[in-house]
């Protein structure tokens, strides 16, 4: 069994050590991006973008409980936008909480956890590692 692939490019799986999310930070203005880029779209600086390891701690900014999606996608689930400590905002599924507005508080502390990508495999049968948020 080969090791899983990352679900997105900005999820890094080191040879040894824990997986993490990688941001790209502008040395000119401090803007944080997901994914590699050459030019900062906030300040226009070129060649000043360097990779940074993003925090696994953050706070729920906003969410929606998704009850209708495309065929084959299990609902309901919680679509969440999370501000990470130290910079970077990521979107993902919030797990470990009931999909009920009374149970989900915007602003609540969450952590990033790394798990199999809901059993989804590509055409070659490869497994994927993804990230999720859970309350902390």
């Amino acid at each position, binding site marked *: 069994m080969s090791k899983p692939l990352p679900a997105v490019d900005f999820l890094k799986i080191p040879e040894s050590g824990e997986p993490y999310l990688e941001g790209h930070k502008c040395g000119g203005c401090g803007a944080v991006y997901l994914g590699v880029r050459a030019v900062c779209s906030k300040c226009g600086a070129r060649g000043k973008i360097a990779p940074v390891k993003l925090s696994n701690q953050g706070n729920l900014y*906003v969410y929606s409980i998704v009850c209708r999606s495309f065929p084959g996608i299990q609902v309901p689930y919680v679509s969440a936008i999370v501000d990470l400590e130290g910079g970077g905002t990521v979107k993902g599924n919030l797990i470990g909480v009931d999909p009920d507005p009374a149970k989900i508080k915007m602003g609540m502390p969450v952590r990033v956890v790394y798990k199999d990508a809901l059993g989804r495999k590509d055409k070659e049968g490869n497994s994927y590692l993804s990230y999720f948020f859970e309350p902390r």
Partner: protein
Amino acid sequence: MSDVYIVGIDMIKFMKAGTGPAVEALGAQAALMALDDCGLTIQDMEALYCGNLGQAGGMVGQRVLHQIGQTGIPVVNCANACATGATAFREGWMAIKAGVYDTVLAVGVEKMGGGLLGGGGGGGGIPKEGLLGSMTMPAVFAEAGQEHARNYGTTFEQFAKVSVKNHHHSTLNPKAMYQIETPLETVMGSEMIAYPNTKLMCSVNVDGSAAAVIMSEKKVKELGLRGRAVRVKASVLTSDPWQERDLVMPDVNTCTRQAAKKAYEMAGCSAKDINLVELHDCFATAELLHYENLGLCGDGEAGHMIDSGATALGGKVPVNVSGGLLSKGHPLGATGIANLYEISTHLRGEAGKRQVPNARLGMTHVIGLGSACAIHILEKVA
């Protein structure tokens, strides 16, 4: 520079997605109606600006001319997401403002599929929808609304009231897709799509078209068309400035605020002077955000504004009297010009049962998901 006018404008009655004729025939219908509205012919048009999204590479404008008159005029085909129709209109406005032409035609047309918009995947590997949150439009706009709820305590019920109001308005508009009252409990109790947006809080996919004949001041005088002409007081287009979260959360607010500020400056008026607004209620959550973005109320006051009835017909500044995208329907490329039709009809005093009394200044607003905003301010002439 002299003023620019709408002299002819019309829209077809919007119909269920997929039931309309071919896109060029659909566009041709509205084009002919707009020409008839001002008594001109295709031979009088010096250029055509055509907005369509679904077949953006398909030379739709030329195909419309193949239906109604191949006069050899220049045709510009525009695509700008849900701001497509407004962008096509604005290109025509600019050409006249620049003095290049005196009379041009703008057409917006869309044939829609059914179902959810947005989402999809992109890239290789595995599908991301439902794994990394949702990029479907109902969820994206739910999250935009939740930001307002987070900041100001806006409730599910307040968002739902937008849909009650707009569906009520559409019962007075024979060109709307639906003419059905939807009480609050019906809206809140309909199928939840992406909390807090229920099915009745999502815009309706329809086939539709709308068109406008735009004219210079000189030509309006020459042809004696001042009687039903509507003055374009402001035409503004913006894109999305950088925002901290916009990689994962399209920002419909900043581009609207910047466009509104410019539009009021251009028109020499303020939000208080506006008598009615057609704004981009693609989802019920979005409408409340835009009350504040357009300056119709202060920040944090949108929930109170919908509760107070100020934006219903008979209120201080009626919003989406046409029924809005929620009930009139949302044919992406046609929406921008259909909004201009609604405002023009009120300024002409021809809106029948839904007429906003004594309307002198009206505003239209569309958003092309997060990254485009178009605003027009129109003024009564006669």
